[in-house]
């Protein structure tokens, strides 16, 4: 597979503030790639650098193997979909879609034809001659996509495009975006602070925190093999049990936590005596048989039954709350609030990472 976008030691600063620290990244041709991170971590800044609105303070941005230094956004083979869409309110839907073609000197009849074809693809044909203000949120969304696709970009950049929509529409648009991407076959770079969106749609995800890319990988990799405490706690739910490493062997290690010695896979490079945190997902916790072996004990202080799943809120006496998710059908009887439980997990399902700053 060829590389669509290559970032080499890209750093972006605003005055004395570094918004993106030296970043290396390859984005492949035709993939749906997401940047996932909390608000303010530098996602938009990085996207604006790829599209050409911000020049990097250091490093090289290559698109299709070509160095983009000094090439303006109007000359790059990228199209950006803005967070607020930025449709042109004084033009009709069709005129919006045709704008990029008009700029390129495509004749009136041809660009109308091509705009109509794109509108057909996003199911907006009946709305072609409406004003933008007459459209609903989801329709505006699709106009923005059609307008960007009209210029036949090699890379489509999307900056949290679904954040303004309501939940239902958002889930519908996720599927639709993914379908469009597969149909047109170009690279999509998608920005979001919503992990569900990223996990759901992306081929690969870069998790960002405070201007750094913490991990790049498929959704599964990121979810099951987080490489940093930030990723482990930001992506999905995790129980965090901090302590001190007491033993390392064969890729497994034991952490002395206030709840006792717990074991998990080694997820970083550390030695005996280092501070570390054991992460275990709520769905990996199991109820221990009464009187049987257990990893630690906790008191149930919240229980929510959701049909196939039951969520338990657990009080371990630590500052952090713990949670367990049980498959309802696996249990003959569910614990009651206030019950004192023994909990266990397979050490292969837990991961020990260097303690980092807590996720925002």
């Amino acid at each position, binding site marked *: 597979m060829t590389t669509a976008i290559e970032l080499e030691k890209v750093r972006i600063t605003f005055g004395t503030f570094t918004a993106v620290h030296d970043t290396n990244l390859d984005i492949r041709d035709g993939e749906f790639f997401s940047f996932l991170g909390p608000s303010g971590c530098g996602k938009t800044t990085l996207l604006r650098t790829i599209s*050409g609105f911000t020049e990097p303070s250091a490093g090289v941005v290559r698109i299709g193997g070509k160095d983009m230094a000094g090439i303006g956004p109007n*000359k790059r083979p990228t199209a950006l979909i*803005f967070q607020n869409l*930025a449709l*042109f309110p*004084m033009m009709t839907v069709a005129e919006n879609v045709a*704008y*990029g073609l008009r*700029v390129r000197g495509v004749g009136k009849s041809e660009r109308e034809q091509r705009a109509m074809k794109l509108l057909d693809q996003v199911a907006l044909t009946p709305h072609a001659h409406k004003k933008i203000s007459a459209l609903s949120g989801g329709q505006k969304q699709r106009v923005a996509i059609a307008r960007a696709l009209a*210029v036949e970009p090699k890379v489509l950049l999307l900056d949290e495009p679904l954040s303004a929509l309501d939940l239902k529409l958002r889930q519908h648009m996720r599927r639709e975006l993914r379908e469009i991407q597969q149909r047109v076959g170009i690279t999509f770079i998608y920005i979001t602070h919503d992990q569900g969106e990223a996990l759901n749609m992306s081929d690969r995800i870069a998790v960002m925190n405070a201007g750094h890319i913490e991990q790049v990988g498929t959704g599964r990799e990121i979810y099951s093999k987080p490489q940093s405490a930030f990723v482990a706690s930001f992506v999905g739910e995790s129980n965090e049990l901090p302590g001190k490493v007491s033993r390392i062997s064969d890729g497994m290690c034991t952490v002395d936590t206030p709840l006792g010695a717990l074991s998990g896979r080694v997820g970083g490079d550390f030695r005996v005596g280092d501070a570390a945190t054991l992460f275990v997902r709520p769905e990996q916790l199991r109820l221990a048989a009464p009187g049987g072996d257990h990893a630690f004990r906790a008191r149930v202080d919240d229980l929510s039954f959701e049909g196939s799943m039951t969520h338990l809120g657990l009080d371990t006496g630590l500052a952090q709350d713990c949670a367990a998710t049980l498959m309802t059908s696996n249990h003959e009887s569910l614990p009651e609030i206030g019950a004192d439980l023994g909990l266990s997990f397979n050490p292969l399902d837990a991961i020990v990472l260097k303690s980092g700053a807590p996720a925002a």
Partner: protein
Amino acid sequence: MNNLDTTFIATALVVVLFFFLVRYDRQRRPEAIGFFRRNGAVVGGYLILGVGFWLIMTFIMPMVFMVDLSFHHKLPPSKVGGPEDVYTLDNYRMFLFGSRTSTESLNWLHLRSFFATIGISMALTLITFAISYPLAYYMAQSAKAQQLRVLLLLLIIPYWVNDILRAFSFRILMAENGFLNGILQGIGLTGQPIDFLGQNIALYVALCYSHLLIMIFPLYNAIDAQDHNQIEAARDLGAPWWHIHLFIVMPHAKPGIGSGMTLCFMLTAGAVATPLVLGGPNSLWFTPIVYDRFYQLFDWPQGAAYAIVLLLACIAIVFTVLKLAGLKLGEIAK
């Protein structure tokens, strides 16, 4: 019936007509809350009385009086309202033909000045727009808050200087042996001093300059209201800068452009002090001619007729241009 009676009656007619227009212009919404219920009796009463007084006493009545006056002869006070005080078109005939009786030849002296004033005012309005637009765009979309404050101050403070003082200082600045000619000759751009005043250049520069701010503010307001992302989106779609201005920014700012241009045109065509002070010996500006009717000939009816012709022409032009640009009068007041 004397002038004042006519004025009162006509004013009443205009006001009634206005209310009918408003009433038929928009259908009443059934759930609309009554004006007094919404604002309270005191505020509501004040609004109606205040705005009514302002409109009637300072605008409609004087205008109606002037229109009425323009259809009368010039008469000594003793004869006003007497048997000789009849309606006449003489004053308008004077403007068109230069004579009260003959329609043989057109009054080219005045007509030429009239058309020149309107034509040059249009050109100056366009020039003022060309100067103001980049500034307004910079202020609205590019400048940082700090730069914006400085720029606004630099723009506003010169307008504290009154018209007449500015006109005379331009006269000094651009006189034959003035400051500007001194510089131009000093750096060797011209050998002979340029006759800025005689060629009316000083007049045009001053007229542009004095209406700059009136153009910039509506432009600035309109451009400022545009989402900067729209400009970036256009650029991202490949638009060169001129395309963005022509097809993204200007259409958005159209009401502001309309409002700035309208004001600028009206004020330029109707400027008095500047043309009086800076007009060269062969200046063709129309307002000094109107001024002369009032204060040289003491023929107020004729002056009124001349002023009304200018006003009507300007209004007609403004409405035509607004119509062509697809703007409604309500939009430019936004």
